[in-house]
């Protein structure tokens, strides 16, 4: 199946170790998730900016049972919602600190982009050193 261009470009960015945020070439505002037209000005003239990869953890969880099909082997894993400093939000995986340990994570922690989650088309984040 051919992936839509916005999906393949976002994923190519992850594979290259970059977190890309869609940016409207008309109004200059960032969008996340990437859209087919800018939700603010409806322009289809859309590009990308490379995120600085810093943000705040809005919330997160550690899934220990009931993975969706294909994710069984990943259990346990932590999912978070990050509010990037660029002003957009996205869902990510969170890096454990030691063996399967996310116990030090808190809502509103400062977090940073690590890279692409191994084997998954999503971003991996960790707590920033304070």
């Amino acid at each position: 199946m051919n992936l839509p261009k916005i999906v393949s470009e976002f994923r190519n960015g992850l594979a290259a170790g970059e977190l890309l945020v869609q940016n409207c070439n008309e109004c200059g505002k960032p969008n996340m998730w990437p859209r087919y037209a800018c939700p603010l000005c409806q322009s289809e003239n859309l590009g990308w900016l490379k995120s600085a990869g810093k943000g705040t953890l809005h919330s997160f969880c550690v899934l220990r049972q009931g993975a969706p099909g294909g994710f069984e082997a990943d259990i346990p894993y932590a999912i978070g919602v990050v509010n990037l400093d660029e002003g957009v939000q996205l869902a990510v995986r969170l890096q454990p600190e030691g063996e399967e340990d996310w116990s030090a994570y808190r809502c509103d922690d400062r977090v940073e982009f690590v890279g692409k989650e191994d084997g998954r088309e999503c971003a991996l984040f960790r707590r920033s050193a304070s």
Partner: protein
Amino acid sequence: MAENWTLHTSPGAANDPVFVGVGEIRTGRFPERGFIEALTRVAILALKDAGMVPRDIDTILLIPNLHSAADQADLVFSRMVEELGIHGSCKSSYMVHSGGSTSDNAVRAAHGLIAAGHAQNVLVLQCERWGSADLNEMITMLSKNGIPGEWELPTGIQFNAIGAMITRRYMHASGSTPEEMAAICVTLRNWANLNENAMFYEKPLTVERVLSSQMVADPLHAFECPPMADGACAFVMTSTENAKKRGIGSAVRLAGSGGCVSHYCLSQEPDQAVLGWPLAAERAWNQSGWGPQDADLLEIYDSYAAVTAIALEGIGIAPKGEGARWIAAGNGDPGGKLPLNTNGGLLSAGHTGVGGGTALLVEGIRQLLHRAPSKRQIEGCQRAIIGGTGGSYMDAQILLLERTKPGA
């Protein structure tokens, strides 16, 4: 400031739509009970409750299921026309869908159809077989509902993960303790113990038991996750004019509604501890002239305790940050200040997918018709607030229902 949308119907007006009957069968695990079989049974129960026969129905609205892609894809609404023997006379049949808030939107659809004259007698039907479905197939199917496959699904997110994130954000924002969150589950169980149709009827629960159950998705324990159930229910709406002609003495009308679709996928919600409830409530008050103090009972979506606590704050029943403590203090319990989810809710009557909200709505109508079993009937109740939400808690929907006397 929310808009002030006038409802173009008024109490006693000929075209004012009213609820006149409900039907429901037991919620739990009934693998031998078929999908169409259950829909047929609740249809007939609701019609009998309304004093009607199938031929009286001109419009069938179906609430979808999430147990089976095949049952979802089929045109079950028109199959039900045939099963009830009204093919050839029924005017229209179709499905309404907004996930867990479908029942609220189905009411708006039926209300508009009746008020405008497109329909006279509308039958709304729901059946879900989550309790008997293949668990892995169901989790995978649910992972495609309110979760964008290209953006969020690669994280491995699913429904309990969504509930867990909302719960964690809510606990962080409000300072609610694990004990206070668990106490909400106990309140719901106390109501389920008065409902013979509930999955957990006569199965008492304690805070200690909740907190000692397995961790499923931190911070959610197993007993804080919704129990997947089979269930079915139905309701009938007609016009006040028809209700009068039929000699119906008591009915329930819609005093107003409000809603807000705050996101599609959870990562795009700006504040998981607030969601769409404040704007939905403001719209509902503007349309009805009601305030949070005007309800005799609440039927608010409760797939996770935090979802209900957040709604109570947005609706203004509890002060900001106090939703969980308001419930934990027993305010919503049997005999409490303001009864909450009198059927036991999704967490204790059973989560019947899209039907969990329908069951709460049907319970609210039943209470206002004064037809609940005496042990849980709220004596003399006149007004109820119904709250629903769908998908990844993408919307907040509020219906304000009041008892009325069509013949008076």
